[in-house]
């Protein structure tokens, strides 16, 4: 099993419910700055993209860590930091191409998405299906379906003609 978080920015309406449930479950506060997922808004806030750890196959954070504190959780597939080994150097922050690792100034520790032990709160909380927890190899199929939905209108006349 290799489920992960799949993101569909075209469905995101930017409400930030995901940030609230993520920070609440991980930090017991409602604080986007401590959320593992963030909605990045572009073009004067018109477009919204959920951003979180991609759980890279060849993870730069793991390679960058001088203390070998970052490892993949074999059950969930999440890249996890062993905080007892972590020295807080933030090399993983520099290495991450997505900015998905952040530093929590109140805890003095790095953090990133841990997939909530296989029950991601963000996916559960998203009302619009913009964040989905699913098999990694399904993303292409999901996206194809989304794309097809967008041009279904063009197919309708053909369907009725075939009746």
């Amino acid at each position, binding site marked *: 099993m290799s489920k992960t978080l799949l993101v569909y920015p075209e469905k995101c*309406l*930017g*409400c*930030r*419910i995901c940030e*609230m*449930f993520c*920070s*609440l*479950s991980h*930090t*017991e*506060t*409602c*604080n*986007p*700055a*401590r959320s593992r997922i963030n909605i990045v*808004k572009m073009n*004067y*806030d*018109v477009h919204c993209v959920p951003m979180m750890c991609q759980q890279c196959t060849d993870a730069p954070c793991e390679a960058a860590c001088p203390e070998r504190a970052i490892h993949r959780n074999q059950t969930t597939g999440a890249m996890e930091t062993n905080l007892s080994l972590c020295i807080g150097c933030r090399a993983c922050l520099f290495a991450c191409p997505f900015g998905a690792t952040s530093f929590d100034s109140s805890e003095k520790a790095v953090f990133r998405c841990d997939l909530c032990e296989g029950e991601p709160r963000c996916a*559960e*909380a998203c*009302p*619009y299906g913009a964040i989905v927890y699913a098999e990694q190899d399904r993303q292409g199929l999901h996206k194809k379906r989304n794309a097809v939905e967008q041009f279904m209108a063009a197919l309708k006349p053909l369907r009725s003609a075939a009746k």
Partner: protein
Amino acid sequence: MKDIESLILRLNLTDRTVTRETTGSYADLFVGGRAVGSKILYDELQPGIDPLGPGNVLVFNNGPLSGTAAPSSGRVDVSAKSPMNNFHGVTNFGGFWGAELRHAGYSHVVLTGASDAPVYLFIENERVEVRDARHLWGLDTYETAVRLRRELEDQDIQVLSIGPAGENRVRFASIATNLGNVAGRTGMGAVMGSKKLKAVAVRGTRGVRLADPKRFFELARDTHRLLRESPAFEENNRVKPVTDSMFNKLYENMLAFGNYEDGRWENFSRLEPEKFFTRYQVRRAGCFACPMQCMHLVDVPGSGYGIAFCSPFMSFLGTVWNDDLTAMWEAIILANKYGLDVIETGGMIAFLMELYQNGIVRDCDTDGIPMERGNRRAILQMIQKIAKREGVGEILAEGSRRAAEIFGDRALDALVTVKGHFPHGYQFTAYEGASLMQAVGGADPFPTYGTGVEIRLSMPGPKEKLLTEARALFGSEEAYLPGNYSLAKVRMVIDAEHRSRIPDILGVCIYVIDGYNKSSTDYHFFYDRLVDLYQAATGRRLTRQELFTAAERLVNLERCLDAREGGNRDGDRLPDRFFQSFPAGVNKDKALDMGKMEEMKDAYYRERGWSVATGLPTPEKLRDLGLGDFIPPV
């Protein structure tokens, strides 16, 4: 004990002193949000001051649930003494500004005094700075947000600003966010402009701490789930929210056209909003932490992008006899960028159009602009003239009553205002509850929040659930049915006033609660949910009954605020036009009865424990509500 208290931030713009206090001392009696804001106004506003002078106090109110995982926790109230009518002004807006303010650690921002030169306020957690805004003065609300985010080098900053209308103290100027969430009514933008405060830019990374985070998580998750499983959510998702309710379902039974001139307009029936949205809607939109996302984000090339909900649509369509949706959009964007309240501006233009139609004003009175019904150029030019106080705009910027006094007696006869405000475009002639709410309410009562049942019961569709509810809660079906002035309806109105204050007190959205309640069989269920969320968030005890009492206390407190400025029963008057029937439409045979409406007001004051003669709270009532200590008998 964890520090979960949120702060009240005070800034005196005259000497730039900043102080902070916790909300704790207010919470027992006033709970939070708008109620705390009104208490602050009561304590700190000197009666009789000029609303556009340095003596006015402008308050931004988050509630105890603002910026949390509770559904729709992104709404903010703005209150001050209103330059429209000298009474207490309040208006509510959404988006992401309020949550950002709460994440910076603040529930309220209280602004007193006035700056000599243009400034803006930058709040970033503990850091509070009054900064030079001379380079921003004159920019529109969109440009201001873009400039500030660029200057402060943070795209996540939330900006609230006034446009040229607020700078020029147009009495119905608004305050707007970068996408067009607007604090529109009662002229709060003019108050901000009078303080020379161009914008409030906010960034918060401290977050909200909760008394019982685990329980709050469970409650918030369940509440979101309930909303997502409710028919209201499905309806919101399936159809385009504004299009369906405003253009199809409610139109004939609800909307009034022009300056309350008709109940039906053929051109409106022929509009094709679906085509407009299919072509120009970028996505649906809404506010922080809200599952409903009831607004539209629209981008029309040449006019611009932004979000809008139903009020601006009606204000620049039916109200001004405009049947061109792209002209409507251009007007909405223009009004939001200049920072004008769309409802008052639409009403003002409708008023001018009627006067023009009847020869009371002519081209020479309107700087040569032909104010023909629906004239696109006239609408757009008048928006700019008002915002810039240019030519006739100088007169109109003072509000419709002051303008009518200049245009003469026949203009005064055509004036449709309640306490100085143009009411929302509803067919008040057919709905007694909505009319009572409009008559006795302060600021902008927005009566259909409470009395939408009257409209729904006048349309085809299932009625049994509503009628059962009316019997159970108010003792009679008459409470919800239109066409009567019963005591049951008076009680329904009072309850509706309380229900419409509760979300403002807690910092959530009335539409979400209202939407859920429409499909729920348990009238009180959602309020119990809110009480649970409040307790888990604050650790304070609160019952549903106490929450409703807090709402009643707020209604009384705001009434006392108005009483200090001369408000009383005499001001609770409806325009003559509500007592005349419309020429057309499904409600064309209906009109309010003046005598019965007065009797209904008697019953309302009596039920409230107010004096029937003055329409003001009695000392006994104030004592019962715990307000006796600080409010002298009025």
